[in-house]
């Protein structure tokens, strides 16, 4: 291996230690751990099932109960425990966050790296298509797709992945084109290495920091998009709880029962914020060109 690749390879080393020195990143990590923990431990953290309509969960007039002793965060319009629905809703958000974003990353990486490495007509076609996707109003497209399919958890994840891969593809395309022109790649090629070997052993490892950064930031975008689709009623369908559809279902009550918007809304904000904080810190830590700047 030549020296040319050393600075970039060296960047991730000690990255974890540098990440741990950042207060905001640690705060973000703590929030993520907390959410994941709550999602996994949901059955032990609450004695109510998220779908259970409680007899004593509504006032005599049939209105939702405010936060109190029996129901920590109150109840929703059907007399279900809001705390329990938010806990189980975390599962929905996290599953979609990971699956949709993972899928988007795979598509984005495939498109970006292929176009950047092979250039030529393949590259032109792929990048023109990416430009085209950039011109689509993403949310409108997602709403349209989600509304027309009968949305399930997996369909929603697919729809989000289909509109969210574009940024990753663009960034990785730029990086791959500059990498492919470096001397060490030319040297590999001269030594007779095939495309597969160069791509997987020499190009992809250098892209890992970028993929990690965009992967982390992307989860935040994905969580917000899922919540938005579910809020509009075209995302994850009730009774499966999702933070977005809790607000969608209870919207009509929000003037008299604002906690039904406030708590799930805060949950969405916290999770999206956590991934943004960590992603932003990772970008500073992993990208050597960004180091020293603020």
């Amino acid at each position, binding site marked *: 291996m030549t020296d040319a690749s050393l600075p970039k390879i060296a960047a991730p080393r000690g990255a974890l230690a540098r990440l741990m020195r950042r207060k*905001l990143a640690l705060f973000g990590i703590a929030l993520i751990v907390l959410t994941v923990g709550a999602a996994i431990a949901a059955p032990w953290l609450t004695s109510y099932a998220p779908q259970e309509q409680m007899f004593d969960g509504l006032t005599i007039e049939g209105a939702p109960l405010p936060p109190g002793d029996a129901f920590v965060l109150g109840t929703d319009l059907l007399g279900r425990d809001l705390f329990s629905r938010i806990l189980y809703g975390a599962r929905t958000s996290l599953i979609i966050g990971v699956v949709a974003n993972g899928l988007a990353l795979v598509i984005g990486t495939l498109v970006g790296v292929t176009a950047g490495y092979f250039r030529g007509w393949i590259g032109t076609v792929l990048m*023109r*298509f990416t*430009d*085209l996707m*950039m*011109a*689509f*109003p*993403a*949310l*409108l*497209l997602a*709403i*349209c*797709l989600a*509304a*027309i*399919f009968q949305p399930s958890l997996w369909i929603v994840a697919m729809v989000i992945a289909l509109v969210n891969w574009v940024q990753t593809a663009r960034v990785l395309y730029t990086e791959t084109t500059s990498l492919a022109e470096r001397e060490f790649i030319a040297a590999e090629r001269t030594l007779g290495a095939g495309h597969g070997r160069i791509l997987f052993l020499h190009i992809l490892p250098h892209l890992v920091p970028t993929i990690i950064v965009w992967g982390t930031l992307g989860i*935040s975008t994905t969580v*917000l998009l899922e*919540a*938005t689709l579910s*809020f*509009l009623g075209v995302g994850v369908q009730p009774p499966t709880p999702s933070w*977005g559809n809790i*607000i969608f279902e209870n*919207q009509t009550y*929000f*003037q008299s029962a*604002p906690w039904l*918007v*406030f708590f799930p*809304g805060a949950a*969405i*904000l916290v999770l*999206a*914020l956590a991934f*943004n*904080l960590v992603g*932003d810190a990772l970008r500073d830590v992993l990208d050597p060109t960004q180091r020293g*700047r*603020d």
Partner: protein
Amino acid sequence: MAAYILRRLVQSALILLGVSFITFFLLYVLPADPVRQIAGRSATAQTVENIRQQLGLDQPFLVQYWRYLSGLVQGDFGRSYLQKSEVSVLIAARLPASLLLMAGAIFCELVLGLTMGIIAALRRGTAIDQSLMIASFVGVSAPQFVVGLLLLYVFAVQLGWFPIGGYGTLAHLVLPSATLGILGAGWYSRMMRSSMVEVLRQDYIRTARAKGLARRRILLRHALPNAILPIIAMIGIDIGIFMGGIVVVESVFGWPGIGQLAWQAIQRVDIPIIMGVTLVSACAIVLGNLLADLVTPFIDPRIKVR
């Protein structure tokens, strides 16, 4: 320069052609049947078939697309399936409201974002800087519908300062524009901060300081104009982000713009309207990006048009 603009315009036209093709194709293959929506549940198979023929929906895909396209180049967006009106008329009626909302949002994000960014840059490294940057992260991470509903609850329901929804006066505009603008304010404050920090580090600022100019004068006359310009170029790109946001914001506030038009059309599979709004949005996005690219060299002569 003229050649560059011409090339970009041709590229933009091709992109719009592609967007129209893909949208048309998706709406064609997706399992939603507009004819069912028009005919209603109780319609006989014969009625359904008649409507299908009338609308030309029994034709092969390419024939349908060609028909749509040839209408489009003559400025004909087709007729709505359910609202008996031309799509262009429907969009033209709703567009001013959406543009007003976006103008309000741009105002909000510039005022809020630039102020936050400038203060953070000047107080770099202090607690003020850190709290402003956390605030900008919150702005970027907050779901628009939650922001909208919370603003409604606090400022309309509880305090009664603004109307709960609707359209007409300046008071109606405040909450929806703030909601749409908060995301951008978060981004702008971060960009403004780093741009300002970068400018303050330049030699000419040090020279100005060494000359003994007043701090205020250095900031307002020397630093600020240079720091703000690259941010202004970003407004074009915002338009694309707004095009998604208006669907949510207009639905929360009952704002009668093209976002609501699109949302209603999607729910009822009114394909001509969906196509129309998608194309208008794509057009706005493409033009916004083009504008951003064209403005940049004027702002910073060091950046040459390629």
